């Protein structure tokens, strides 16, 4: 039994590591063979078979930007509400928690349908960066809120008692003590949400759209990196090489956000130990 368990544990770990290495290696080897940094600065040509992905990177960043602008204030506000007002409004807090739980389970394609129906059609934004960013914001909200709220909950009990004992009002306590304390978690949550949003495809197909030109404004359609990969592999015969390169760019971006996450977490821990 002991040997069996040990064997299976090592086996599954080995398989998983092997597949990850194969996958990343395949993508890197196949794209580095033809990679050239002009790929990042050129416009796509003939449906993406030739040329680069410059407008696609810009569209992706714009979509992320819209998403973050919405998510940071609203997510922080909700996290504060959940952690600070659970005594006064237990029912509302309960409802919000349930809603977040459901929201985090809703499939991304359903977010895509919803975003299409609400933002593109009902509100008349059409296929646009606005629609895509707002849809992504709703989708990544639960992850962001959970990260920030868990952070706020680590606040020492004394930091709550002292302001009360000094007769500080709620607003002052939240503004001067809770929010500064929560800031590192806002950064961590933001980085996590960026990672989640970068990885998203299905929610964007029918909201931010397919257009691979440089968007002129936020009301223009813009193609995200993940959609570009999908389109090149499924709809553009002969797009494989550029699909590989785009996949590598996307993976590198994901690695960077992952690394950022670790760095933020570590520097923050160091700081907290001194404080």
């Amino acid at each position, binding site marked *: 039994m002991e040997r069996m368990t040990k064997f299976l544990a090592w086996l599954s770990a080995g398989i998983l590591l092997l597949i990850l290495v194969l996958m990343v290696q395949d993508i890197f080897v196949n794209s580095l063979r033809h990679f050239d940094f002009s790929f990042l600065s050129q416009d796509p040509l003939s449906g993406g078979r030739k040329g680069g992905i410059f407008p696609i990177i810009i569209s992706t960043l714009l979509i992320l930007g819209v998403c973050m602008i919405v998510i940071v204030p609203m997510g922080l506000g909700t996290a504060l509400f959940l952690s600070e007002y659970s005594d006064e409004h237990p029912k509302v807090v309960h409802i919000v928690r349930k809603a977040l*739980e459901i929201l985090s389970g809703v499939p991304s394609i359903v977010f895509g349908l919803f975003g299409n129906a609400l933002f593109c059609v009902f509100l008349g934004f059409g296929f646009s960066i606005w629609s895509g960013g707002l849809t992504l914001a709703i989708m990544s909200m639960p992850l962001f809120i959970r990260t920030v709220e868990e952070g706020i909950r680590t606040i020492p009990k004394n930091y709550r008692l002292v302001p009360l004992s000094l007769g500080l009002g709620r607003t002052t306590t939240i503004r001067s003590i809770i929010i500064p304390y929560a800031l590192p978690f806002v950064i961590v949550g933001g980085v996590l949400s960026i990672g989640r949003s970068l990885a998203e495809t299905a929610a964007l197909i029918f909201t931010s759209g397919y257009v691979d030109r440089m968007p002129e404004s936020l009301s223009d359609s813009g193609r995200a990196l993940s959609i570009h*990969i999908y389109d090149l592999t499924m709809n553009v015969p002969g797009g494989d090489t550029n699909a*590989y390169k785009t996949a590598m760019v996307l993976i590198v971006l994901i690695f960077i956000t992952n690394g950022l996450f670790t760095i933020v977490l570590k520097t923050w821990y160091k700081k907290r130990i001194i404080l």
Partner: protein
Amino acid sequence: MYQLTKKNKDFILESVLTINGLFSAIAVGLIFIFVTRESLPAIHLKGWAFFIDKSWYPLEGQFNVLPMIAGTIFVSLGALILASPLGLFSAIFISFYAHGSLAWPFRRVVELYAGLPSVIFGFWGLMKLVPMLNEIRPPGQSLLAGILILALMIFPIITLNLMANFRPSSKKYYRVALSLGMRKSTYIWSILLPSLKQQIVGAMILALGRAMGETMAVLMVCGNIVKMPTSIFDPIRTLTANIALEMAYAMNEHRSALFFTGLILFLLIFVLISVADFWRRHESWKE
């Protein structure tokens, strides 16, 4: 006056935060309302036809969704069957068998799996896995390909969930078990895992939910042919893939039918979450 202004300030903050908090609940409501609203025409027009039509020929007004529901269920259950042992044993590996310096990097590997975009999984599956399966039995794009890729995508949910649960129970019992001269495996199989039955089921339900909602990877590797599969080498089309494929050109009744499949998905996930929630509450009640 001073008292009044102070109270006002606090009151404003409280209202703003409450309304802001309610936004998430409103979002869930809006999702439900909009997806339902858009699918009403189809429900009205077709009703039970969704389950008794000849097949899915949207341009001819035939909307049988059963093959796709079956596709979704087969592919996600298959993925769950593969992912459960993978998740369980990798969690056991990290928590008990990886020596100190190995545990952390391997944990990062699992987290990386969780963070990789589904389109990357689909892309790699299409480029490498599908040709391999094609050599065994054409066409390669198949239920099996979907199961394999999905299993890789959902096992981290099980691993990370279990690891989070291993830690507190291990703190309590592991030393005792070792001090009694138990072997690690005895401890794992006869003390730890039985005490975590509920959490394991909960994690599996979450993973199943994720698998059912997954779109891009299955869309890219499953072949997307609307047919009841007869073997795991048959191509299938899932509900999610169907939406992604046809939304671009769907009009009127067809578009509405796609929203209806979205609604089915939404409700399926809703039920799953409620069940997972029930399991968890059942467990906390026991304690």
